[in-house]
């Protein structure tokens, strides 16, 4: 096969790659593109290794009478799944079969999965792991800007700005090639990073390249209220912009008025002088004051909170006061995390949405989508339960009895994961589609082997709303099948209405029609057009004559609200759900390391990555380590009411003494989600991954690094 131009399988930056199949395997090289400029991180360079994972799933598996997963034919497995789904539906109602999707699925698959749930299963209960990822940013952007596109401008625009306020994002580890776009702000001394850790990204502010604010975990909203306070108090706001392009400024001002910098300092631990300096730096870079431009960007660090939506709205309020959104060279954006975290939330796998970013309880939306699907609008179910609630309801009275999982490894990635594991175990039927035996697949009743990124065609929508083509470079192992095929087979067996194409280009065309007129309108796009024009951002509606050029920059002429104005949303601080207290006096924050992605199901199978980053660890400050008699390399346990997690100590003063950090890519004893909090944001349903309270102790056991196990591969019979 020839060299194929495609994009990386991992994060939302979707770095451009060239894949060259050779007899020895698939060669990977970076490809020049405006986002990654030819760069790849170690995950991208080594991505082809997963194609040859020794435990790659190549045959359906069915749990037998002996309780073990054993190989089955596709017909056996699909017949079984369809029969059990039908039985459960007949006995407990259609909502008793639930679906859990993923932000790594292509647009075509996200679309088809949502459709499969609604008209093949007839269930309201579909949600996806993007609920853990982008839901707070999405909810906040929708209520303020009228539409949710992570970056409503091309990433490269950021390069021209003199100031970038980056809240809760560790770009330098999570999407390294993106760092190049911060060089303009760094050269101007204008990169401001807000993170309780001196993260790799925070170090980019050193040597006069910017400022690092190191707040107490769970106080980001307070920091933002304080910044807005200073902007308003010192007359730094863009008054003309606020008057002409926004509404609701007074209510936001009323709440920010109570957060003068000295009060913020008391709650957030960020010196008042640093807050003032930050606000002035942002203002000086803002267009109304003749600056070169300023951006406010948020990441999961501030969004994965019970007040995540409020925090993002506070960030947007600050950007609005400075007159940034909808201006060339300035703006607000959320840095999307998962590979198709953007597209995954637009095409209908969210519990409250239909394709085109339509709301499921909007009658016009239902009518439009029903026409595309060829069904009666009345047959489309209503709003389902959002992820945390859905998972909690599994196997309970009135809750789902069966779950179909695509592109998610819930046993590792869900908050309070031991509880989620219990709920999964309480199901009558768990069906997992995956490429490797993930921790979730290993406990499933039926495992269906599906395709990897280099084995399939499709599209992904990157963090900047650009629709990218994913292309097939190699043949899949003979036993694996496309999910599009799996759903067609199941839909047929279930006697579902509608058409079930297995060709991604055809599914895309249907998706495009379903999205027409919606907030995320793809109707002017097709695989053929995207092959010819790799630079198209949605919305891109179908047109009569000249094709629509796509929309790299939103809001230049107005916001997508009813009156065209961006809304200040009045928000105030309530604090985290699980704050430190006498019996849990230390904050725990979680995050990623460069070498691993999400639950690690893929990256823990890549030797180079495992060598560089073999196991989970607990970062703790020397003062805290000293207090607990912990030496580097000791095993440390973190405990709270939800559970205990154990990992090796890494002692560093790059973290606050009142806080410990753990990455979340590992299963079992090392799985930090055993203790993270599943309390959710009332608006978005986002769980509070990013802050909870724990006790720290040295594990009594001697450290056994090998027990931490670098490569966790379970043999699965072929």
């Amino acid at each position, binding site marked *: 096969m020839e060299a194929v131009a495609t994009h990386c399988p991992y994060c939302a930056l979707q770095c451009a790659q060239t894949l060259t199949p050779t007899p020895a395997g698939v060669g990977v090289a*970076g490809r020049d593109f405006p986002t990654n400029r030819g760069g790849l991180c170690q995950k991208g360079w080594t991505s082809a290794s997963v194609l040859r994972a020794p435990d790659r799933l190549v045959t359906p598996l069915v749990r037998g009478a002996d309780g073990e997963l054993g190989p089955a034919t596709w017909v056996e497995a699909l017949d079984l799944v369809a029969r059990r789904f039908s039985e459960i539906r007949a006995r407990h109602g259609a909502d008793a079969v639930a679906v859990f999707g993923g932000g790594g699925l292509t647009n075509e698959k996200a679309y088809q999965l949502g459709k499969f749930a609604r008209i093949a299963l007839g269930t309201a209960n579909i949600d996806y792991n993007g609920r853990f990822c982008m839901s707070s940013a999405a909810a906040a952007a929708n209520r303020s800007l009228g539409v949710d596109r992570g970056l409503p401008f091309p990433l490269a625009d950021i390069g021209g700005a003199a100031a970038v306020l980056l809240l809760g994002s560790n770009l330098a580890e999570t999407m390294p090639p993106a760092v190049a776009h911060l060089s303009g702000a760094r050269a101007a001394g204008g990169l401001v990073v807000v993170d309780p850790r001196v993260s790799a990204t925070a170090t980019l502010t050193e040597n006069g390249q910017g400022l690092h604010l190191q707040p107490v975990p769970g106080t980001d909203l307070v920091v933002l209220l304080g910044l807005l306070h200073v902007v308003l108090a010192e007359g730094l706001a863009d008054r003309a912009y606020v008057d002409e392009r926004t509404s609701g400024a007074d209510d936001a001002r009323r709440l920010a008025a109570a957060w003068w910098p000295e009060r913020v300092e008391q709650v957030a631990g960020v010196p008042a002088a640093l807050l003032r300096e930050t606000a002035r730096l942002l203002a000086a870079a803002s267009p109304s004051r003749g600056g070169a431009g300023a951006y406010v960007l948020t990441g999961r660090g501030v969004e994965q909170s019970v007040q995540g939506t409020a925090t993002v709205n506070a960030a947007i309020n600050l950007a609005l006061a400075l007159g940034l959104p909808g201006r060339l060279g300035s703006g607000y954006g959320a840095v999307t995390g998962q590979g198709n975290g953007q597209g995954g939330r637009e095409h209908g796998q969210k519990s409250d949405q239909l394709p085109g970013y339509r709301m499921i309880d909007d009658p016009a939306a239902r009518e439009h989508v029903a026409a595309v699907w060829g069904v009666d609008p009345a047959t489309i179910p209503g709003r389902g339960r959002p992820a945390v609630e859905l998972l909690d309801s599994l196997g309970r009275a009135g809750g789902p009895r069966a779950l179909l999982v695509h592109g998610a490894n819930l046993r590792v990635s869900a908050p309070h994961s031991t509880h989620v594991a219990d709920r999964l175990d309480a199901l009558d039927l768990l069906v997992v589609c995956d490429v490797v035996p993930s921790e979730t697949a290993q406990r499933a009743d039926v495992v269906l082997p599906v395709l990897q990124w280099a084995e399939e065609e499709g599209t992904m929508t990157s963090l900047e709303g650009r629709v990218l083509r994913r292309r097939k470079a190699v043949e899949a192992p003979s036993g694996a099948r496309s999910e599009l095929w799996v759903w067609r087979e199941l839909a047929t067996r279930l006697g579902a209405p509608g058409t079930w194409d297995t060709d991604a280009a055809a599914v895309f065309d249907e998706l495009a029609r379903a999205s027409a007129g919606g907030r995320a309108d793809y109707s002017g796009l097709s695989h053929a057009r995207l092959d010819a024009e790799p630079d198209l951002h949605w919305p891109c509606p179908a047109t009569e004559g000249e094709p629509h050029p796509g929309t790299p920059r939103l809001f230049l002429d107005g916001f997508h609200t009813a009156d065209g104005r961006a809304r200040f949303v009045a928000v105030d601080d309530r604090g985290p759900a699980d704050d*430190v207290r006498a019996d849990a006096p*230390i904050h725990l924050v979680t995050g990623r390391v460069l070498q691993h992605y999400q639950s690690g199901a893929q990256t823990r199978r890549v030797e180079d990555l495992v060598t560089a980053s073999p196991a989970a660890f607990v970062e703790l400050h020397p003062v805290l380590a000293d207090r607990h008699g912990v030496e580097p390399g000791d095993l440390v346990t973190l405990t709270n009411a939800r559970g205990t997690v154990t990992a090796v100590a890494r002692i560093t003063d790059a973290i606050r003494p009142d806080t410990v950090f753990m990455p979340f890519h590992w299963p079992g004893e090392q799985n930090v989600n055993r203790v993270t909090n599943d309390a959710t944001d009332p608006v978005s349903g986002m769980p509070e991954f990013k802050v909870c309270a724990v006790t720290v102790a040295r594990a009594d056991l001697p450290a056994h690094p090998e027990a931490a196990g670098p490569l966790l591969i379970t043999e699965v019979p072929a």
Partner: protein
Amino acid sequence: MRLVVIGNGMVGSRFAEDVLARDDAGKYDVTVIGDEACETYNRVLLSEVVAGRQDLAAITLPVLAHPRLSVLRGVSAAAIDREDRVVVTTEGNRHRYDQLVLATGASARIPPLEGLGLGSGALPLGVHALRSIDDAREIVAATLNSRRAVVLGAGVLGVEAASGLAQRGCPVTIIHPADALMERQLDVSASTVLVGAMPGFGIHPRVGVGAEAAIVANGRLTGIRLTGGEVVESDLLVVATGTVANTSLAAAAGLACERGIVTDAGSATADGRIFAIGDCAQPPGGGTGLVAQGWDQARALAERLTGTVARGRAGGAGASDVVRVKAHGLDVVTMGVCGGSRPTDPEQRTLSLSDPAAGRHIEVVVEGDRLVGATCIGAGQVAADLVAAYTRRTPVPRDPAHLLLATLSSAPPAPSSPGDLADDAAVCRCNSVTKADVARAHSRGAHSVAEVARETRATTGCGGCKDEVCGLLAWLGSRDEARLTATAAPV
């Protein structure tokens, strides 16, 4: 239910908002009676207005618009008729209440100083308190022509006012009769450090000296005579000698008043229908004069009246006894156990670091494994960290002396030469490439950045390590050359 609030200041207005935000059942109609004609404003920030750091307009608090809230501005309550449950205004209007909340605040205490015309109610020209937005406006206007300002009283507000005046470019003398500035918060050694720092910010402190008289000519201030007879010439005097709770309305209605309106821990007076919050109140532990306490009382009372509990951050308003002076350059933070007059407690350890030449003084008080008090002058981030530890009661380090210093930057000193770099030091973080990896590539003939990138992938992630790779290649090249030279040298 009719809920009447007397006082539309920071605490009264906040209380009305807190009640309505929690009153989903629509149980209350709220009437707020405030004697100031202007919009509610942030009194805490008046010293910022004096300093020119905040616009007057920017400190107004936009009013909540709510169908069940009516706010009467420029209206004074004249009497409370507890029998009929009516508040009578000076205009004679009657407002019936089912529950009444007094948030009447406090007034500036004017000391009985000769020349201040105590009792006449009118201060001489050039003499101001700093309690209202009008005071701030007048002081700002007065600074335009003032040759020297005097601040009487160096409590928190006095220090903030002096700093504000100094920032306006006005030379300032601050007079304080006690032996320490802010003596409720600072002991003599802490005060001495603050005294030493003040001249650098245009403030001339006179500690341990009181004022004897205001010298007034033609109804206008010309100077202050100190105890001992010395005269400080001045045309602007800001009096910051404490406050007096506004209790007359409550006292006239027969409610118990001492330093303030006496309440229980739930802000209730002996009349179960009447409550007092903020600076006018005297709860069991006494009032702190800090807005945080008033806001905590407002929230707690709103929850009590509406029967709701909303999730809120512990110490969300800032712990009730953390004092943070808002003064440009003068960084003073205290909390809990502090000040010179505190009793010694054998359970407590007190550790301090004093660095007067650098304007720094830090004292921490530890009991068990908790921080129970601290005094910080010029401590920057350390003070912010101590507040976080104090308000959240996080455990202190095994050796509490670690509380006194910020940890040093995590960045190790950059090696002076690539040769000093350890072999396993990461050169390219994005691709896990070490110095040894680059050296290996170099030995295999990779002599340019592009060649090293091809061999090792270094520089192909974020690109931030290009300079380091260049430096490393140069070093490797010269090392090889030196070896070659050494080999080739005649024996």
